[in-house]
């Protein structure tokens, strides 16, 4: 890869440089010649992964039906490097910092720490200072100091306002639980956690974005299929599926037959809530005239699943999508679990696997690092909630997030399930497990952006494209990431 271009976000092999240059010229010429060429490329064409300039240009050239160039490119005697080799001879006059800056893409190091500061008031700093000092004391097992600091946090938090106060309160509570050994109940009653999730769903766009972008990828993967089957690892209230079903109903040529397998943990009161959700969706399916089949599947952990349990049908007759929203990271609490699940997914032979996860590393080995990372992450999250209108929803959303904070900070071992990892880390896992990326494109990006515009107090939400994945963040800090995958043995999907 050309290093200088890599640093500014583009992936071009040095050996391909001349060819890319030629494509640029070719496309420029074609755009000039084609009637409405520009407007076509701008409005109709779906763009993918602009970091890969060569393929991006190729897509557009194909879209414009450009004839191949008359002569092959001039043999390039010198690559980009040769030109500045001469300049390098005069490099003594260059200051050291102007030599190449090492690229630091998110995937290469887990030490990348994005940081958005919204509150730089005096009190806020003292509060954060005390929180960090307390975490450090806990880390060093100095529990008497930690106890003293936790009490101090309580006083300081009271004088704070806004997001910082709430975040500090949750972190302080989590620290206190860790200090006193009062671990939170596990599992919590499902109807309570479901309710919290519903409020979270209404208050801020994270879940909606997750569902929307995953559905977009599933819809595209199901194009042309007459019988489709979605296996949802994150069934909960089934809030993702009405929108997909409606989109399928409106498909030109009519909807496919839609089968849904919803997987979830057992309910504490032994109620069959998964079936209830299924019933509601069946009623919806009837009103929109979509042939619908449902199965609810209870499992303590996704790792308990085997492909044989899922009643899969031959892939010629039924196309499968596997969907997981904020579930996979929980598997990291047990060694081997995520690998088992991914191998089961492989056996399912899905058309597409859609994954949404928190964009953070809350699974590092050291407690202090985890504490710091999550403090930054949830500060940004809470700040994004500040603008929301409905205070009841807001409080519930904060409780919902507060439970995650508690788990990250107070729990350990198999109880610590909120083991978030970054997109870069998930990419590595999926790659090793035999999957290749399916890129999300500019159409999904645009629609997601329009979705965000609907949120009041939501000026700060931003969608970002990252090597074929989409991320949603608050200001410049990405908070969740949607990626899509297919089996590596499949032929390359032509866009």
């Amino acid at each position: 890869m050309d290093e200088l271009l890599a640093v500014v976000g583009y992936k071009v092999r040095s050996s391909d440089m001349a060819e890319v240059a030629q494509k640029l010229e070719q496309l420029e010429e074609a755009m000039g010649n084609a009637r409405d060429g520009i407007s076509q490329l701008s409005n109709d064409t779906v763009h993918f992964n602009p970091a890969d300039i060569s393929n991006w240009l190729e897509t557009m050239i194909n879209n414009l039906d450009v004839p191949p160039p008359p002569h092959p490119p001039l043999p390039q005697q010198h690559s980009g490097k040769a030109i500045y080799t001469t300049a390098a001879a005069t490099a003594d006059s260059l200051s050291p910092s102007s030599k190449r800056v090492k690229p630091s893409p998110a995937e290469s190091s887990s030490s990348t720490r994005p940081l958005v500061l919204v509150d730089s008031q005096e009190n806020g700093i003292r509060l954060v200072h005390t929180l960090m000092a307390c975490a450090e004391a806990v880390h060093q097992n100095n529990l008497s100091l930690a106890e003293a600091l936790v009490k101090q946090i309580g006083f300081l938090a009271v004088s704070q306002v806004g997001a910082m106060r709430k975040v500090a309160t949750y972190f302080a509570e989590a620290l206190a639980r860790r200090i006193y050994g009062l671990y939170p109940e596990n599992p919590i009653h499902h109807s309570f956690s479901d309710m919290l999730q519903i409020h979270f769903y209404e208050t801020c766009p994270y879940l909606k974005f997750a569902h929307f972008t995953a559905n977009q990828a599933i819809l595209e993967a199901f194009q042309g299929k007459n019988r489709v089957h979605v296996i949802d690892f994150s069934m909960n209230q089934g809030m993702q599926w009405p929108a997909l079903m409606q989109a399928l109903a409106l498909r030109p040529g009519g909807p496919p037959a839609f089968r849904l397998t919803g997987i979830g943990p057992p309910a504490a009161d032994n109620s069959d809530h998964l079936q209830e959700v299924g019933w509601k969706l069946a009623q919806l399916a009837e009103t929109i005239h979509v042939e619908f089949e449902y199965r609810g599947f209870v499992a303590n952990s996704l790792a308990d699943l085997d492909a044989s349990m899922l009643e899969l049908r031959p892939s010629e007759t039924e196309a499968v999508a596997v969907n997981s929203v904020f579930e996979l990271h929980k598997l990291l609490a047990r060694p081997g679990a995520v690998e088992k699940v991914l191998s089961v997914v492989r056996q399912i032979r899905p058309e597409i696997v859609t994954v949404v996860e928190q964009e953070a590393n809350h699974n590092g080995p050291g407690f202090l690092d985890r504490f710091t990372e999550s403090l930054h992450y949830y500060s940004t999250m809470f700040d994004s909630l500040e603008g929301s209108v409905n205070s009841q929803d807001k409080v519930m959303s904060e409780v919902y997030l507060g439970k995650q904070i508690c788990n990250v900070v107070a729990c350990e071992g198999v109880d610590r399930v909120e083991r978030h990892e970054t997109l870069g880390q998930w990419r590595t896992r999926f790659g090793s497990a035999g999957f290749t990326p399916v890129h999300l494109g500019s159409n999904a990006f645009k629609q997601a952006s329009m979705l965000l515009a609907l949120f009041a107090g939501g000026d700060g939400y931003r969608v970002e494209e990252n090597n074929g994945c989409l991320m949603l963040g608050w200001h410049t800090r990405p908070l969740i990431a949607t990626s899509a995958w297919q089996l590596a043995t499949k032929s390359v999907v032509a866009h």
Partner: protein
Amino acid sequence: MVISEVSSAAKQCYEEGKVQNCGGELLKKIGRVSCPNKREENKMEFEEGLLAHPSTFFLSFTPHTLSPLLLFFPFFFLVAVILNSPHLSCEVVRACFSSQFLTSDPSLYLRSLSFPIPMAESNQLNLNESKMVVPLNMWVLISNFKLAYNLLRRPDGTFNRDLAEFLDRKVPANASPVDGVFSFDVVVERETSLLSRIYRPDEGENHARTLVDIEKPVTSEVIPVIIFFHGGSFAHSSADSAIYDTLCRRLVGICNAVVVSVNYRRAPENRYPCAYDDGWTALQWVSSRSWLQSRKDKKVHIYLAGDSSGGNIVHHVARKAVESGVEVMGNILLNPLFGGEERTESEKRLDGKYFVRIQDRDWYWRAFLPEGENKDHEACNPFGPKGRSLEGIPFPKSLIVVAGLDLVQDWQLAYAKGLEKAGQNVKLLYLEQATIGFYLLPNNEHFSTVMDEIKSFVSSDRS
């Protein structure tokens, strides 16, 4: 001022010599071609020959049938004036005739001489022309931007913002130091969601910063704080665009400064004066941060810097600062965006030649200026008919970098002249063979020249 004399002399020659465009292209090619094995020898011979007998040297070099005097007259004149000027150092001359432009393909040279070059109207020639003056990867980078930007501007004056944000390569801030620099984003003004990205030198601590120590006071006796306005013709890019994040990081390392990159609101959604207002808000914010004060005098040593539209913003924010009594120690304008209703010679001569067309420039001004206003608006043309005088005003000293292949250079030179006439302190750096965006990658001599200049510009008050 010597360099402006050079360019007007060149202008004069072009008019007098009435040299056709094709001759001009040929001229440029001859100046830079030699055989691969003898490259260094030829280079020296070339430079020596130039110094000794410019006109006869060229005569011996070309078998072309066109009258050599007509062909070489403007170039010779240009060179002679350059050589006769005492102010220009060898470095600047080297910037004009850099060895980087020597191609190792002799067949290209011969081909260019044997076959008549068509009139320079065709796109093909234009594309090849720009390829001769920049390294290939830079050509790819800038051309890629050009192509993307063409997709985003709509004829009706609207902008495809969603596609723009999709295509723009962004990087998050990073509180872990990389190459001695760490960064973080700050919400400067909540109501307008005005963010700025702050870059700080690591000072050897080598650990990731947290909310606690991110705003720790600077330790230096004197440290420049450079408020940076990214370019993009008022419509493109952001503070977290990868090209600008990289540039700002380099500035920190080279100048040992703090850099504050302002994420100002963009056109056409936000017209004049939004960008200036945001710049002024950021300036006030920076000047009130106690942790940015230099120890020596407990003041924030502020410099304003920007490229393209950012350079334009620098001027207007500086003006506002001076009128409000906030001290700015210096302005740095890299290829700043200025214009006017008149069509200047450089705009006509360079239209479409080096990545930029006049019609594109016009689109951006229409998108930024208030509806119904033309390019003689003060924002675009501060020394034009609607401009306000800067005479007697304690305007900051200015460093103005002009790329010789930028079609708006006449406006930039006029800006420098305007400052000079108003009695202001101006330093002009004219880089004859530089195109727009040369500072985005470090693999060219213009980059190092400019960085050195910026470094000394912001370090003048250091002990």
